[in-house]
């Protein structure tokens, strides 16, 4: 890569002593970024800390505060900010959240925060680091608001694989299948999308890939753009919802992990990605549907007919969540109420675990396969006290975002 590395400022407490600083360096290196520690003097640390007004006791957190202030004041240049502290440290969690707010509100720097354990790997950090560098490096690409020409977007997700063919800013072909073998699933959806569009592969002018399998299928299809799902999905969401300007929040409850992204003019500002347990994911809803003997597509309408409050359920863990579900059915609760409770439980988990980490700004746009489950959208709207926007083709969000962004590469071919 001949591009200049993206300079990511690290504000952290604990990664060196947790043995995971190397993982941060490795994830950065994979996306041609370099981590650095904003330079401050001892006197800056004391004055910045006093001025910030948060009485942290840990010296490394005081140092992080001073470094954040140097970034906001502009005395140190950076392209992006990575905030990392130990998981389960409450003192650090408070500082981490406040610094994220502070940087988001007082600078244009993209920022991601993460709480690590000694088990955190570079693979886990890669998508976040890739999104950070994309936002820093590809602002021009992310500013694209219209799809042009004929492009193909493929989203190789953990649960499902999707493809979209777009022509002159319209969706003309779609493909969808549960993910089995990554490449075969991709071929299947690409073929259906092309067939529906009545277009042959040779007509495709540019290809974009995203999702877990993005590198593998990107290589196979010789993609022009291989991009993580955080930036692609937020771009796709504001495009489909026609909210490309101003603020927005994008929520994507996925099969394996959830994304919550605070967006400004289509570009992610802060985001979180994760999920403590599958209990807070689409996977739990799939299991619920199976146990209730209904198709996943019927779960949403079923939940809309039920009352979520009548069944106690907390799916912090998928095993315990399923236990609650089985118990509720055994106690004679209706399928409708159980379906509604499962939706509420997932919405609550996402709300408690992730939405606290981003600033919720309206409109709130829900995307991904789970956004088609009305009951879930309804519960999320109730928790956030807002009308949630679910755009058309929301289950194809990654593919749409990829096809849209890939059209920026047409003239390069």
């Amino acid at each position, binding site marked *: 890569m001949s591009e200049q590395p993206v*300079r990511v400022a690290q504000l952290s407490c604990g990664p060196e002593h947790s043995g995971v600083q190397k993982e941060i360096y*490795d994830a950065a*290196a994979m996306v041609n970024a370099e981590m650095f*520690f904003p*330079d401050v003097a001892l006197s800056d*640390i004391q004055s910045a800390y006093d001025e910030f007004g948060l009485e942290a006791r840990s010296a490394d957190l005081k140092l992080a505060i001073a470094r954040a202030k140097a970034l906001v004041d502009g005395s140190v240049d950076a392209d992006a900010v990575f905030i990392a502290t130990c998981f389960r440290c409450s003192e650090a969690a408070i500082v981490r959240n406040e610094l994220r707010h502070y940087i988001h509100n007082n600078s244009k720097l993209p920022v991601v925060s993460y709480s690590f354990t000694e088990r955190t790997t*570079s693979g886990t950090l890669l998508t976040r680091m890739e999104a950070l560098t994309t936002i820093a490096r590809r602002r021009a690409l992310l500013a694209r608001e219209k799809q042009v020409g004929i492009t193909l977007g493929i989203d190789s997700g953990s649960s499902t694989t999707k493809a979209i063919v777009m022509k002159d800013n319209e969706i003309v072909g779609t493909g969808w299948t549960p993910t089995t073998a990554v490449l075969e699933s991709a071929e299947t959806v690409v073929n259906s999308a092309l067939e529906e569009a009545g277009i042959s592969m040779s007509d495709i002018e540019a290809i974009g890939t995203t999702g877990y399998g993005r590198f593998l299928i990107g290589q196979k299809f010789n993609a022009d753009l291989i991009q993580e799902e955080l930036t692609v999905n937020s771009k796709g969401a504001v495009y489909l919802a026609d909210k490309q300007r101003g603020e927005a929040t994008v929520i994507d409850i996925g099969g394996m992990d959830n994304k919550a992204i605070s967006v400004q003019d289509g570009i992610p500002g802060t985001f979180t990605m994760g999920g403590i347990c599958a209990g807070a994911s689409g996977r739990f809803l799939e299991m619920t549907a199976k146990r209730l003997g209904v198709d996943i597509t019927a779960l949403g309408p079923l939940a809309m007919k039920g009352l979520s409050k009548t069944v106690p359920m907390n799916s912090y863990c998928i095993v315990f969540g399923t236990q609650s579900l089985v118990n509720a059915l055994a106690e004679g609760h209706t399928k409708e109420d159980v379906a509604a409770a499962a939706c509420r439980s997932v919405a609550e988990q996402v709300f408690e675990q992730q939405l606290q980490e981003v600033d919720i700004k309206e409109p709130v746009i829900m995307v991904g396969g789970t956004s088609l489950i009305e009951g879930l959208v309804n519960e999320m709207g109730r928790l956030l006290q807002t009308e949630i926007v679910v755009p058309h083709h929301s289950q194809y969000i990654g593919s749409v975002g990829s096809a849209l962004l890939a059209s920026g590469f047409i003239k390069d071919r």
Partner: protein
Amino acid sequence: MANKPYKPDYTGTITKYVFIESPDTTPQTLAIRAYELSEGVMIKETCFGLQITGKPEEVNNIIIQLRNIDPTHIFVKDRAFPPGDPRRCRANLGGARPGYFGHEFEMRLIKYISKGLLESDSKKGYNKDILSKLKKKSTDKLPAEKLQKIIETQEP
């Protein structure tokens, strides 16, 4: 990413920082003297003094002789890394390594330590009241009884 094997450099050596904060001796004087004594030991000059790397006995021997130059103004500390190690280098980190700030903080107080060392051989000893203040864990608070008395003596 796959684990890369790690082969350490400078095994079996130690590195020590030598700080000098003196009105009479400059880091340059210290360095010249250290080079004279070095005999194959690695000496690196820094803004605050020196870093000396070598076999433990050789390094310790040089340190003893260097201390003699200005005993109350030379301070020594172990360093985990060999000098110029890229993992701790300011140029690579973007900012100072965390330990630097700790040194910066202590160097502000070092004049009091120098004074203490200068006086430590005198027969006068030190003031026990001052020591007990240094040994107290928390700041003095007004005892409740005293506060009550103050309140009682106030005019209504």
